[in-house]
């Protein structure tokens, strides 16, 4: 096994073009488990830790451009006010040790349906900045995944940054697990309200081959909110509406039975999480959030 160091982004792209079989390593919290247990034996590792620009974030227009290797700890501490859904989800990842190392690029490239950063990125309309020596491209987060553990990344490509629109309304995230910490999601749900656009966005995690947006639930709720003039009045939301939203969201789940939970349980729990996150975000909106 070779170990390749890159001191700059251009060096990293050149190294990846030269050695497409080199596997990038950032926080190592996914990759090292596989190496320790002999499940993966890459021909080479390409260390991204030495590239300063990957651990920086900046505001660009209405967006945050979060460097690929900004760890969860810093997303929580520095970006909670700007991208609250992502920060809430980041706080549920692993433990302090894992959050100090784990990164968005690692969560994306691993492409696990249980990646906790993924649903909040989807509902915030985030996209992934990808590059190689051939050029750069930007891919919307839902289009980044081809299936479980499969993404659109080509062998010579690296993730450079994640572009997240700054929240224009309340955002929430919730997950079900067997403990209050250190758990891989049994299922999860992220919700964002976009009052300016009269939009609602939901996304399911860990209950399908990839993260799953919930268009039927969104359309139903947008219709109810418009019909009842609730965006303008910031009035109370009927229980029946919240419950129906949960049911419709749950119907978008495509779960499997596995050690962490049965498909039926997951579908039900997604509905509960959708209803709860709707309650929380709507209460925030009523409380005057924007």
């Amino acid at each position, binding site marked *: *096994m*070779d*170990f390749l*160091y890159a001191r700059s982004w251009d060096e990293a792209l050149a190294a990846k073009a030269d050695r497409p079989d080199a596997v990038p*390593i950032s*926080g*190592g*919290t996914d990759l*090292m*488990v596989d*190496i*320790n*247990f002999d499940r993966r*034996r*890459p021909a*080479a*590792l390409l*260390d991204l*830790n030495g590239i300063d620009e990957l651990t920086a974030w900046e505001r660009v227009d209405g967006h945050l451009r979060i460097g690929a290797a900004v760890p969860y*700890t810093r997303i929580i501490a520095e970006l909670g006010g700007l991208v609250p859904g992502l920060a809430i989800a980041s706080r549920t990842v*692993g*433990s*302090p*040790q*894992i959050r*100090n*190392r784990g990164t968005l690029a690692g969560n994306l490239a691993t492409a696990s349906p249980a990646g906790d950063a993924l649903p909040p990125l989807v509902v915030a309309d985030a996209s992934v900045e990808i590059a190689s020596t051939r050029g750069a491209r930007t891919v919307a987060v839902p289009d980044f995944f081809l299936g479980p553990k499969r993404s659109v990344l080509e062998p010579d490509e690296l993730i450079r940054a994640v572009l997240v629109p700054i929240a224009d309304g309340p955002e929430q995230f919730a997950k079900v697990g067997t403990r*209050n*910490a*250190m758990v891989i999601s049994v299922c999860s749900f992220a919700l964002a309200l976009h009052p300016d656009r009269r939009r609602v966005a939901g996304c399911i995690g860990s209950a399908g081959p990839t993260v799953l947006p919930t268009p039927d639930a969104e359309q139903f709720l947008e219709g109810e909110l418009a019909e009842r003039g609730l965006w303008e009045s910031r009035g109370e939301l009927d229980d029946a509406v919240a419950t129906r939203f949960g049911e419709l969201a749950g119907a978008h789940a495509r779960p499997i039975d596995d050690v962490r939970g049965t498909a039926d349980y997951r579908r039900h729990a997604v509905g509960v999480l959708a209803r709860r996150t709707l309650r929380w975000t709507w209460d925030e909106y009523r409380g005057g959030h924007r």
Partner: protein
Amino acid sequence: MRLTFEVNGVRQEADDVWPGESLLYVLRERMGLPGTKNACEQGECGSCSVYLDGALVCACLVAAPQAQGRTVRTVEGLAGADGGLDPIQQAFLDTGAVQCGFCTPGLIVTTHDLLERNPAPADVEIREALAGNLCRCTGYEKILDAVRLAADRKAGR
């Protein structure tokens, strides 16, 4: 490959490191620092918690070559130069927060990190900070006592 990095204030070298080796392996097997424990090798148990450039990490999840030129602090580096125990180590002894002792070094480094960031943590903050460190003997109550006692002593209470 040859690696050079600083451990507990001392420049250390390791030769013939396999690039996929973990920092944990290099510390224990190549640098003779067995205080950092090896248990799960998947980041779940926290027994191998160390500081890497000041950040608390699981040494089992850092590829050793990633530590090249960086600074590592292990449980061996917490005691004073005269061998006197750190107040956190003393608090773990005084409260009986140690049974088999295997998880203790990781818990002590993690507690050290918590009290550096938050000298007077509330119980929920202690629980959140220690969530990545498993103990299979004590049931955690004595460990929580130790953290509270250490915080009080460090604050001179």
